[in-house]
């Protein structure tokens, strides 16, 4: 008899998953608890903060009296020189670049100084035997380790105070000078029209900004603005300008032929069944567009069809299917679906089939080893001058049986995990360019639209009753386009409130490529925080490229000084990590080796991440094939196994090394963005999960070290 599942079974099952998900915290906890309670309980019980402070004071005094701080003027000089040699796009960019130089110089100075100080201190005290007079006092080794760490942390704080004050002062001076220049240029009137609004914004808001920008939940591209009263959505056909992705969640069992549970998944193939509408577009047919990805070949007709010219065929209501993953990477190209042929819609509202043969389907199964496979069926309308309509739940997968007496299995698209009675929404995309999805321009404003959807956004209007927004887009033009001012790319931005459904007035924009453009919308249009931002390009022959974060709502303005302080705090936390690792290394190796080892520990995880593509399963075979072709099977096996083992070891090691990318001191501030407090918490978590256990390990090593060899 099978025993019923108990709560304990769930606990037993969940423990390994918990350990795996929180490996670094579990390891840290074990080291701290075992180290402090198992090895150093007596030291913990005798712990004295005043002794730690006294030891830290000596380390601090030693560094200061050795004139460590004298290196800061060199860094300052370097920043001043480099910032004078920069080539910024505009005044705001100059401030951003200078901010980056200041922080980079500070971080470099901090890391080098603290590594050298902390790595050399303990070995030198042991070498010159000063440690004799410390350990023969009632100081525990725990107090010595913490005292040393605290001492150098105080040194790093002193460096940061100097560099922070310099950075703030220098940036203030520089921004004042640049703002004065802008005012003079505006007053002189020698400004391009496309620039004026941006420069006025710089003067009004200042160049030293710290703002938080909220981005949309989704970005979708349609042939026309979706009608809230209808669930049908239209996408532009021709030259892969737009497509729709429908998510599917399937298991291997779902893919096995019905009635044959022991068969391999996908053994009988699969059929994509789609019901689609189409209509003539009011827009002119698509001309040759800038570089696209992925490349979709010209439509092909089945050999049984009578011959027609390519131009004629290009205007047929044909559709093609490929299978992609969540990132849009192609898992199964269109060439392997339906024998490489697009399907022809014989009439509007027609159902078409796309058979996928068993061999091709096996690739999807193998490339998604997870139990529940998520992939997307992507439908692309190929007919030039046509628009294709689709409603939810109009695409299904059919798993055909191998026997006539068994009905086929029909799979619906993925259910919403929050509400399994609902399907996940379809996703409408534009064609991918080099830096986002492309939107074609049309002068009469009736072309395709991009829609950013914001949901429950805490919108805060300014004193003028308008909500500040900003955009940074890329502009792509055809080679024969006029590059003069007259051909400046014009956009319109329009809001549609999700609650009222009301469309706001169109706001014109003439942005420059890849530069921030600023605009505001009336607060009532964004009331409730849920709204769409509808983007249209109104310049014929021009394409704009939009990313998920190309348009943002300025949610909050903050103080630049506070932002800089946050950045410095992140650097300070990083120095705590660097110092702790340095002290740890110096407890068991000489100081030159300690410096190297510290750098390896600090950069190890980052290095492995850089090699991530190489360090995957199967690298062993690749190495054999590339470097040792023709090796005998035993040799090839040995090489392959060795490389695989090394790869696993490196990946395993990287998991327990600190993640220095969680100290992003420059990530936001160099774009004028507010650094969220969560960044400091993330940095603090590295201190908790790595620096703390490392300090405990240093204490244990020092406790059992003979300091008078």
């Amino acid at each position, binding site marked *: 008899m099978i025993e019923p599942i108990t709560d304990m079974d769930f606990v037993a099952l969940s423990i390994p998953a918990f350990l795996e998900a929180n490996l670094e915290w579990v390891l840290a906890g074990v080291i701290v608890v075992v180290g402090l309670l198992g090895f150093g309980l*007596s030291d913990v019980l005798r712990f004295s903060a005043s002794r730690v402070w*006294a030891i830290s004071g000596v380390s601090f005094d030693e560094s200061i*009296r050795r004139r460590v701080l004298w290196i800061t003027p060199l860094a300052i000089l370097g920043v001043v020189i480099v910032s004078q040699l920069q080539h910024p796009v505009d005044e705001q960019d100059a401030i951003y670049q200078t901010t980056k130089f200041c922080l980079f110089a500070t971080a470099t100075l901090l890391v080098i100084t603290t590594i050298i100080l902390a790595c050399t201190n303990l070995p030198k005290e042991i070498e010159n035997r000063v440690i*004799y*007079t410390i350990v023969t006092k*009632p100081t525990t080794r725990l107090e010595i380790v913490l005292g040393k760490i605290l001492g150098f942390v105080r040194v790093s704080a002193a460096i940061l105070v100097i560099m922070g004050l310099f950075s703030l002062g220098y940036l203030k001076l520089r921004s004042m000078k640049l703002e004065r220049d802008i005012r003079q240029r505006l007053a002189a009137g020698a400004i391009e029209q496309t620039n004026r609004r941006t420069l006025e914004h710089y003067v009004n808001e200042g160049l030293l900004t710290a703002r938080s920008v909220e981005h949309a939940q989704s970005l979708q591209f349609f042939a026309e603005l979706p009608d809230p009263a209808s669930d049908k959505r239209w996408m532009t056909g021709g030259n892969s300008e737009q497509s729709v992705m429908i998510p599917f969640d399937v298991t291997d069992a779902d893919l096995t032929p019905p009635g044959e549970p022991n068969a391999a998944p996908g053994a009988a193939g699969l059929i994509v069944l789609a019901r689609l509408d189409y209509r003539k577009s009011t827009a002119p047919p698509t001309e040759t567009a800038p570089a696209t990805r992925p490349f979709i070949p010209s439509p092909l007709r089945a050999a049984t069809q009578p011959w027609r010219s390519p131009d004629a065929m290009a205007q047929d209501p044909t559709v093609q299917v490929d299978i992609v993953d969540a990132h849009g990477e192609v898992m199964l190209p269109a060439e392997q679906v339906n024998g490489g042929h697009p399907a022809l819609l014989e009439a509007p509202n027609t159902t078409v089939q796309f058979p996928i043969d068993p061999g091709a389907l096996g690739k999807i199964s193998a490339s998604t080893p997870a139990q529940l496979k998520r992939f997307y069926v992507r439908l692309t309308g190929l007919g030039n001058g046509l628009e294709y309509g689709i409603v939810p739940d109009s695409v299904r997968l059919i798993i055909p049986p191998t026997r006539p007496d068994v009905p086929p299995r029909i799979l619906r698209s993925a259910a919403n995990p929050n509400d399994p009675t609902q399907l996940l929404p379809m996703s409408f995309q534009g064609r991918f360019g080099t830096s986002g999805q492309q939107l074609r321009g049309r002068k009469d404003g009736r072309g395709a639209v991009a829609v950013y959807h914001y949901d429950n956004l805490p919108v805060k209007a300014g004193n003028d009753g308008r909500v500040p927004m900003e955009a940074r887009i890329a502009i792509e033009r055809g080679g024969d386009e006029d590059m003069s001012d007259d051909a400046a790319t014009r956009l319109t931005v329009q809001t549609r409130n999700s609650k009222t459904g009301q469309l706001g007035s169109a706001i014109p924009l003439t942005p420059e490529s890849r530069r921030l453009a600023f605009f505001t919308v009336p607060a009532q249009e964004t009331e409730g925080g849920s709204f769409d931002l509808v983007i249209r390009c109104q310049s014929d022959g021009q394409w704009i490229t939009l990313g998920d974060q190309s348009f943002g709502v300025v949610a909050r303005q903050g103080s630049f000084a506070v932002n800089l302080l946050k950045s410095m705090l992140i650097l300070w936390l990083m120095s705590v990590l660097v110092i702790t690792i340095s002290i740890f290394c110096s407890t068991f190796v000489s100081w030159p080796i300690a410096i190297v080892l510290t750098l390896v520990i600090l950069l190890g995880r980052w290095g492995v991440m850089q090699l991530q593509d190489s360090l995957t399963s199967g690298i062993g075979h690749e190495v054999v094939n590339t470097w040792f072709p023709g090796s005998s099977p035993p040799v090839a096996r040995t090489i392959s196994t060795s490389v695989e083992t090394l790869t696993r070891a490196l990946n395993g090691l990287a998991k327990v090394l600190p993640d220095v990318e969680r100290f992003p001191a420059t990530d936001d501030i160099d774009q004028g963005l507010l650094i969220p407090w969560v960044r400091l918490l993330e940095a603090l978590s590295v201190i908790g999960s790595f620096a703390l256990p490392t300090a405990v390990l240093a204490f244990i090593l020092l406790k059992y070290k003979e300091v*008078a060899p």
Partner: protein
Amino acid sequence: MTANFEAVQTSNLTKVYKDFWGRDKVRALDGLDLTIHPGEVFGLLGPNGSGKSTTIKLLLGLIFPSEGTATVLGQPAGSTSINEKIGFLPEESYLYKFLNGEETLKFYGRLFKIPSRELKRRVPELLDIVGLDAKARKRKLREYSKGMARRIGLAQALINNPDLILLDEPTTGLDPIGTREMKDLILSLKKQGKTVLLCSHLLADVQDVCDRITILFRGKMQTIGHVRDLLQVQDVTQIEARGLNETQLSELKEFITRMGIDNATVTHPTTTLEDLFIRIVREKSAGGTAYTSSDS
């Protein structure tokens, strides 16, 4: 200091230094059994490499024994808590060279959690005791002479008013006056009931101040006992008298010969060189006349 336990007690204390591969390299100390009683000045003698410093390092927990045990003031050697009652002067003054004399003592005082008010009183007092003047107190230790460094080293060893003081070559680098002051200080510490473990290869120093001594050689204890007992030559008798003239001296020699003792010698006793030096310097300092051998 309570005397319920010995100041220092070791049993089969052994230290073997090993090489990188863990193989025995040097047996620095070999089965030392030693007891130092509370309140005595104990001398640890031996030539270089005999195991004196190794013994002190083991007692302080700077290194760990390969075999055997050691207790200090009743607790295992190296125990942090017992360091509250220990003062240690290493063979050279291993102190922070960038601090001045006062800062040095304040730093070590803080390690003993001595309140600031108490430190303000004790630091100048100790600097007076070790003979560092006001100017020297404000100078960085890197500017100190060897003698001054020994003095500040001694002051830091006494900052906590310890019950047990370990002095490793305390007179190294000191001039004769400094040496004498050091020895006087040791005797004064003894008078206060403190235990002093003196480690030196300067025999005269040890002889002058120690109650008991042990001689180590090649890591092993060769002898142990009271200085007086160890130095006494049992089969020789010495008679001392002051102010004998030549006639009385001749009669004394004849008397000894009459008693049938042929190999007796009658000479004037000599002082130690240290005593002679100190007397000369002190007399010169007091404005006295130059001292010559004919003066005696």
